[in-house]
């Protein structure tokens, strides 16, 4: 029996074989390559072609960029150094020395160089002020900074006496106080109107004298920097950030206005949006810089940069309004009816039910409007403001650097890319965080 068994059992494996690696072609990088790049003869050809194109581009650009010359005083000197290094008529290399010489102008314009800490600090304050709005994980205490940040940043950038921004800030406090203590006496509507009117009157007539009186009594301030000295990437950031921060609330209000049943509010919003959106931004900028000069009484010095910020804000708020309206229209009718059935009034239903959903839908659109707005700030070059592009022209106009071309544009492009790409990443983060559907 045992023999027959042993006979029959000779075909049975008694111990497991050691595990073997999968075939080389079915694992790791090779498998990935085979599946993704070389899965058929057509794809193989395309892959090889693509690799060749990428190689060809890099082979031309990388030596030019990496071999670049960083220390020279002029383009001529750059060329001399290059000829020494690589021989006469050798390779073309970048002349990064122009950036070493002029980076501060591309970034800060004519801003006094002993005050560069001020725009940098402003940027940090801005970051700290928006962090609690953008990220839930940041301490809520920073929210206290957020409403104060515009005044701090204004004071840091433009300098001068500290009482000016404080006097303006007092106007907002005044408006709040009027509303808070007026509401029980004259009712909600009256208090709202008073809270708008009183600060405006205060700003028009009282704020100026109070600020100048206080500053002569107690002169606290830093060196004042006029708007003319703003330039370079800092100008783009100031216009861009001011435009972005101001246009979002304005755009939401316009979107709600366009959905409104109130005749005048509705028509006003529609006309505003269509007129602003129907005309190119460059025309609005020319209006701001040229036409207004004729309309304003001679001698009024209405800051050009402020005019540009206002125009850019109005322009992008019209776009934001349409993006948000898209979000509002995408919500099912039931959401509006549900909010009504809970007994919420208009503002409550908007704030608690409608807008959170509508804005979530609109995030990609809003962020691409912002990115567009930020890049459109380069258009101010046409009205003589020296943004990075404007400065690239001025730098080329010096005898030292006339003839430099790509180096400046690469630097400017890199700065813009960093800003726009981080905005885009943030919007993707926000979309992931707010996703409520179940997958």
């Amino acid at each position, binding site marked *: 029996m045992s023999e027959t068994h042993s006979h029959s059992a000779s075909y049975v494996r008694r111990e497991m074989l050691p595990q073997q690696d999968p075939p080389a072609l079915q694992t790791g990088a090779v498998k990935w390559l085979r599946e993704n790049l070389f899965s058929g003869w057509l794809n193989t050809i395309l892959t090889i072609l693509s690799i060749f194109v990428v190689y060809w581009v890099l082979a031309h650009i990388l030596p030019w960029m990496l071999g670049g010359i960083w220390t020279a005083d002029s*383009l*001529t000197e750059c*060329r001399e150094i290059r000829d020494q290094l690589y021989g006469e008529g050798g390779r073309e290399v970048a002349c990064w020395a122009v950036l070493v*010489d*002029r980076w501060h*102008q591309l970034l800060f*314009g*004519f801003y006094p*160089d002993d005050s560069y800490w001020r725009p940098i600090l402003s940027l940090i304050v801005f970051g700290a002020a928006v962090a609690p709005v953008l990220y839930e994980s940041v301490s809520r205490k920073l929210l206290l900074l957020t409403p104060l940040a515009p005044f701090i940043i204004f004071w840091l950038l433009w300098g001068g006496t500290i009482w000016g921004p404080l006097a303006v800030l007092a106007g907002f406090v005044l408006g709040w106080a009027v509303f808070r203590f007026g509401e029980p006496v004259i009712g909600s509507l009256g208090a709202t109107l008073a809270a708008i009117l009183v600060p405006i009157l205060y700003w028009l007539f009282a704020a100026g004298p109070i600020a100048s009186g206080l500053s002569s009594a107690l002169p606290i301030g830093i060196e004042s920097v006029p708007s*003319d000295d703003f330039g370079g990437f800092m100008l783009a950031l100031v216009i861009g950030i001011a435009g972005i921060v101001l246009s979002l609330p304005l755009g939401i209000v316009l979107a709600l206005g366009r959905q409104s049943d109130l005749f005048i509010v509705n028509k006003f919003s529609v006309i505003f949006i269509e007129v602003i959106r129907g005309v190119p931004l460059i025309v609005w900028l*020319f209006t701001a*810089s*040229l036409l207004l*000069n*004729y309309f304003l009484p*001679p*001698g009024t010095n209405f800051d050009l940069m402020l005019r540009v910020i206002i125009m850019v804000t109005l322009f992008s708020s019209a776009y934001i309004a349409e993006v948000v309206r898209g979000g509002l229209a995408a919500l099912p009718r039931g959401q509006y009816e549900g909010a009504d059935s809970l007994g919420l009034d208009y503002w409550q239903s908007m704030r608690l039910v409608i807008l959170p959903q509508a804005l979530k839908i609109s995030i990609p659109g809003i962020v691409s409007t912002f990115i567009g707005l930020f890049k459109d700030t380069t258009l101010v*070059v*046409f*009205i*003589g*403001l*020296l943004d990075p592009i*404007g400065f*690239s*022209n*001025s*730098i*080329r*106009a*010096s*005898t030292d650097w*006339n*003839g430099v*071309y790509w180096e400046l544009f690469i630097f400017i492009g890199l700065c813009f890319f960093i800003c726009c790409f981080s905005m885009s990443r943030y919007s993707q983060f926000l979309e992931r965080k707010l996703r409520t559907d179940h997958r």
Partner: protein
Amino acid sequence: MKKSVFYGTLVAAGLAGGAALAQSATLSEVQSRGHLNCGVTTGLVGFAAPNASGEWEGFDVGVCRAVAAAVFGDATAVEFVPTTGQTRFTALASGEVDMLARNTTWTFSRDVDLAFEFVGINYYDGQGFMVPRALGVSSAMELDGATVCIQTGTTTELNLADFFASNNMSYEPVPIETNAEAQQQFLAGACDVYTTDASGLAATRATFEDPSAYVVLPEIISKEPLGPLVRHGDNEWGDIVRWTLNVLIAAEELGITSANVMELAQGTDNPEINRMLGTEGEYGPMLGLSQDWAVNVIAAVGNYGELFEQNIGEATPIGLSRGLNAQWTDGGLLYSPPFR
């Protein structure tokens, strides 16, 4: 003693009265503001550009500084306002700037229709052509059928059309926006010919790797007298700018330089120098300026020749020769009316 104080007061009062009569609205505005607002280009090689420390430099900038020196005795009391081709005239008309020194061509319509006053000419320019030497062209008359890089929206575009039409030739325009772009296109061979003002051609050619591979053709097809301008309606202010420019030109003719002006201001044998530099007559106060206004101008920026050599002359990379911009005594067109 008492008497001399009395006379002194009288003279001072008389001077003040005389000055007040000639005082212009723009001048008093500039003086109360404490600096001059001068419109310049956003950047043109040799004529106006900020340097690495943010100070404006150039030939046109020199004119602004000269006016500031005349008014304040301080060539740094200028706020430079960069203007583009589109914004320059509005900036001047609306009072945003007190004067423009922005290589602007003096034309009939700008002078009359736009209501500006060109106070003189600080650079005689003209439109020329540049071609690669390899093209083998030696005259603009051989350019039939050429592709031409041309900045859009400028007088050069119209001049070009006129030139080719009047010579029965055809051309193909390659429109470009800025001079820098033109350089790239021209070097890349996108066009056979690049045309702009001769000074611009020289500046552009100087930046090329191998300038000798390109030639500027001898023909100049237009007159481009460039000069500073002010608004109509304030002739006293116009006089100040005009005679500041004339001081620069006359100083070169009379041999006054920034080096010797202080010495000559002590008084010389030449009555015209004395009148100009204020040791004779009351020429400064007639303009509403100080007696030593011209001394300040020359001490601050030098005479016309010095300004030229410093910014665009043959010693600079741009290397322009004086040509039409030489003194009339040297066969050029610079000719200042006398200080009398």
